[in-house]
């Protein structure tokens, strides 16, 4: 769950920064899980939003 590198020195070499994701969970399956969770939240929000809206129209 933590940041993927201990030191920025290992991410930088004579040619500059290496080409890779530099965020929490990079190089692991976490970005995919974040995407799944976000997608489920969005669908749930739409369902709740629609239920609330239909209640208003009753």
């Amino acid at each position: 769950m933590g940041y993927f590198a201990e030191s920025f020195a290992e991410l930088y070499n004579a040619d500059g920064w290496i080409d890779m994701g530099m965020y929490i969970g990079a190089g692991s399956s976490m970005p995919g899980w974040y995407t799944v969770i976000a997608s489920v939240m969005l669908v749930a929000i739409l369902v709740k939003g629609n239920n609330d809206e239909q209640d208003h129209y009753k």
Partner: protein
Amino acid sequence: MEDQILALTAELAAVKSAAQVTNTMFAEAYYYLTIPLMVLIHAGFLLYEMGQTRVKNVLSSGIKNLLAFAFTIVTFYLFGWWFYWALPTFPVTSLAAGAGYMEISGLAYASAIALPWGDSAQYMGPNMADHASGVFWGAFALFAATTASIASGALIERIQTVGWVICAIVLGSFAWVVAAAWGWHADGWLVTQFGFHDFGAAGLVHAVAGFFALGILVNLGPRVGKFNADGTANKISGHNLPLTITGLMLIIVGFFGFLMACIILPGEGWSWYADQGTTIYGTPMTLSALAFNVALAASGGIIGAWVFTKDPFWMMSGCLAGIISVASGLDVYFGSHVIIISLVAGMILKPCADWLESLGIDDAVGAVTVHGTIGLFGVVVLGVFGSGIPGLGAFAPEGTVAISLYGQIVGAVVMFLLGFVPGYVVSWLVHKAGMLRIPESVQIKGLDAVKVPAQAYPESMVSDDSDSK
């Protein structure tokens, strides 16, 4: 002597490296700044739409517009960006990576750079070696949100919020994306097979969004009180025309940003050339060309609309129509040519809107006409005047593909279908689920009083036809 040459060589390498860093940072900043400029389009559409709404519904219109913006951007991140890179060659040739002319599309290519999971996630988040993916994604996400904002205004005062959000997601993260993949990508089959050219997205953003709105309007129906029993139309005025007109001017400001984002800067790994800006097709383009042509088109549209209407609403709509009418060929038109085309667009705008209304379509802000009809007009007009111009840059073998009237007409038909058909189908499904049209009793009472826990105007301004207090 040898030492001096070595020292100079090292210094030259350092200077070239510094110049490249400057170029890279400039390119990143350039595209980044188009994003807030394009947010002004949404500020404009928000004002435009709320101004055209009656007092009793004004906040509901604002909520609808804001949610379309938000959901479109989020879903464009989740899957819309992937469609753009995956579909350029579909269904004409293989979906395999490398099947396209420039080999920058296909399922494998899209999955390698445009999915927010797996290995491609490194290009969908912070990456210190990647100064391009985020700003390109951001610009495209704002293009996507623009399509939703365009359609949103046509539907005010009777469409349900969540039903509309579902439609907006289909438009912003799928329908226009397919149009962009086919006609706004160097691998796109409309480009490589037909020479389709649409620099400023008159067809693939404006026409698609405009006719998507028309598809929804067919299922949605008019506002209560719009049409009489004999079919004649009543004018339903918005509550704040100055707000609407100011909103339209903000949209124009944002369009300068939208159009500058359509230029591919030079000197980067993803550039077409080392020393020359281009269109997305790799054909020559400069910001100076935009400065001439966008300013003139906006002015021509205002003047053209003024001739027959004398109405500031239609004059500002004409301003937008003027730009849209020349957007496809902003890279190849001469300034005076732009004046002629945009004047005509401004003149035909209101008659086209009146004709649509005579068919029983209640387009509350004229979006179908301004964006749909004028968008297609712009696409076809380029075919009339631009036939024979090379359709791809110098990287393509000479004579490979050229702009033609035939190609532009084919593109116009495709853009119409990519707008209208998905708009009709998704809104029909939403309608069948009971999530499209707001009940008439609620329309009469006023949407804000029913479902918004806030008041637009605390001094209790209400519409004459509202029973809300």
